[in-house]
């Protein structure tokens, strides 16, 4: 009989079609994400007032120490560690380099301490000296690897140098606010 066969055919086709539809539907992108509420602006802080003439003189006097010694030595210290870990594991070379950096930071700190500092800049100056002391201590820590071969000295030194770099940035923000440009 034709009718039962047609019914079977229709039913079969419907089943195939339904299953195919479900299969396609599972491939689609579904469900928009939850609506987000933007967070409040983080407070960046009030606009900085310009440095006074006295403060400018202080910043100018500190700049050569900062740019030609401290910043370069800080980056150099990280590279001394990178070279040790990735290249030669030469503890003597590391010790020599770290000792040289320690002396540079100590000299820079001595020069900075000898500077005339306006009253308004004492807190900034102390923060800068603290950074130099951290760097000096970190360098000294690195020299210890030659004595016992323990990489933990480098871990400690790196953590100190990272803290020191954060301090430097705070000082730079006050004294040399134009120092950073988009890169």
């Amino acid at each position, binding site marked *: 009989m034709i009718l039962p066969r047609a019914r079977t055919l229709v039913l079969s086709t419907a089943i195939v079609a339904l299953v195919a539809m479900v299969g396609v539907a599972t491939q689609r992108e579904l469900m928009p994400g939850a609506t987000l509420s933007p967070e409040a602006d983080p407070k960046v802080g009030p606009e900085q007032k310009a440095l006074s003439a006295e403060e400018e003189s202080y910043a100018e006097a500190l700049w050569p120490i900062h740019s030609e010694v401290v910043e370069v030595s800080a980056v150099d210290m990280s590279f001394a560690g990178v070279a040790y870990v990735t290249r030669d594991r030469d503890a003597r070379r590391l010790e020599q380099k770290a000792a040289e950096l320690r002396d540079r930071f100590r000299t820079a700190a001595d020069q900075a301490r000898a500077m005339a500092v306006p009253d308004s800049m004492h807190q900034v100056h102390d923060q800068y000296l603290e950074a130099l002391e951290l760097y000096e201590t970190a360098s000294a820590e690195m020299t210890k690897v030659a004595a016992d071969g323990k990489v933990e000295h480098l871990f400690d030194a790196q953590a100190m140098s990272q803290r020191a770099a954060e301090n430097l*940035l705070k000082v730079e923000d006050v004294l040399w606010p134009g120092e950073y440009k988009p890169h």
Partner: protein
Amino acid sequence: MRNLVRRIALLGSLAIAGLAWLAITNGAAAQDQNCSVWLIESSRFMKVPMGGFIPDRAFIPGSTDPNHNINTVDLPVNVGVIKCGNELMLYDSGWKQQEYHKMTGTEHWAPLPDQLKSLGFDANDVSKIIIGHGHWDHAGQLSDFPNAVIYIQREELNAIEWALNYPNPKIAAVNNSPGGCKRTPACGYEPLTVAEIYGKVLHGKAVIVDGEAEILPGVKIHPAFRAHTAGSQLLEVPTTIGKVVFGSDAYSSWEGIRDWYPANIQQTDTVQQILAYEKCYKITGGFQNCISAHEPLTYTDAYPITKNSWVALNGGRMAEIALAAGEKSHKP
């Protein structure tokens, strides 16, 4: 007999339906080798002189030439978020210290882990960060991704080290002017950024790349040495919309890639930057799928691959660029 025939027909239909299902889902599975890609605006530099960004489009007061009538532009700092299977990666990592914001007139910053969270991801799940180059605004926040391995070119590290040891202090300086360093060899490699990179190296969470590298099937690092910095690197990612190529600051400007203008000159050989543009054309078949780090048109219809965008944390923007098969949209 008829009943038997009917039963056989029905069973046969179900079998065909089952095969159809398998064919569809297996087809989807075959596309799983593609990756999903999003773009996050980590922050935005405001009012940057156009001539400082693209020298050949410097502003000329009174000019009606569209190449010279834009005085300043706002530059997003774009971070790529890439998901390939279960691997979550970043291309570049922005920066975070508030001091940088104040010093650079930045707005719309939010911590990258929070931005990832708003996208539905956890910073602890980031397994790889490909550093396009080591400048302070692209290689920051590394400490916020404790499980991520960074990928950085040896050429990048070697060049910084060379600069630091150069016998002329004006050339070796990280910042040679209180008003901002002037594209000298170590300019842009700040102590904090380098310390964070070093921290990853020290803790065994760094791969120092020598040129080309395939870090996942189809996900490839291509060197673009001196296209922005000595060790700049691109990242090719396979997606359902074709290959996309991230370029960090080798691709600072998407319009630059389109129109062949060098942009954002730092430790840059402009010839190498132009050749890096060409690499994107060769890999992707054009310029549309080249992902720029600082293009002002990002997140608008004028930069089509990024137009599926929305405003997220602190007014920063995000874009959903491509979804791998089976990946649901993360757009709110």
